[in-house]
């Protein structure tokens, strides 16, 4: 699975991307997508002093460096009656629906989301940030960088 494959990223990746200043590098050279719901979740990051710093994604969307995709009702219905609706947020559910139906990769560090991908048979579409864009880990504090590696997630 090459890093050039279209890749959805979850809200936390975007938030950390802006907070730790690797988002521009991430969207350069990678086909980065957000699900429509994740787009609405990304509003600000919390700086070290507690201030909420707005995230301006519009310019990235307008220039096409970040693309938005929406799962259809039919695609969402495939997950509607599963336990994932209790475990995952709406944005993650939409991302999973898109991964299953359209073959996107999905960049997330969330244990529940990765386990769901495993259950759904699409674990090969999981793209940890450390593999999608290894240089991003250098921007993160060690404690944060660790969560974005494949070994951080236990599937047992």
């Amino acid at each position, binding site marked *: 699975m090459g890093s050039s494959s279209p890749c959805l990223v979850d809200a936390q990746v975007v*938030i950390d991307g802006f907070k730790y200043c690797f988002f521009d590098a991430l969207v350069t050279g990678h086909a980065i997508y957000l699900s429509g719901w994740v787009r609405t979740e990304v509003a600000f990051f919390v700086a070290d002093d507690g201030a909420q710093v707005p995230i301006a994604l519009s310019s990235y969307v307008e220039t096409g460096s970040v693309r938005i995709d929406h799962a259809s009702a039919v695609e969402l219905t495939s997950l509607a009656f599963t*336990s994932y609706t209790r*475990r995952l947020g709406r944005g993650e559910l939409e991302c999973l629906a898109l991964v299953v139906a359209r073959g996107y990769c999905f960049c997330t560090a969330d244990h529940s989301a990765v386990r769901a991908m495993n259950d759904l048979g699409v674990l090969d579409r999981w793209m940890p940030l450390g593999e999608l864009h290894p240089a991003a880990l250098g921007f993160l504090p060690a404690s944060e960088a660790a969560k974005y590696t494949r070994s951080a997630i236990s599937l047992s």
Partner: protein
Amino acid sequence: MAAQRLIPWEKAKQIYGDAEFQERLVKDRGEEVGPEPRRFMLLAVKAFLMHQISRARLAELLDINVAQVDGVIREVGGAGGMRDGIKLSLSR
């Protein structure tokens, strides 16, 4: 019910803010009276820390933004604050 998406969060907040509802809470579950039921918040955080729910789901349950989740976890003392020996599980 809002967490299960049976009613909108706005409706849940309206019900929770109702004086009669709060009076009933005082009688039955005094520790849950206030702007938000702390026990629910603690359970939701615990479910996240035990990898039973995702970060985004926790944000939905607490009606906060994903970016605020780390602050809430720090507020309750992180994983260390959740070590009460009680295990949580959601059915598959």
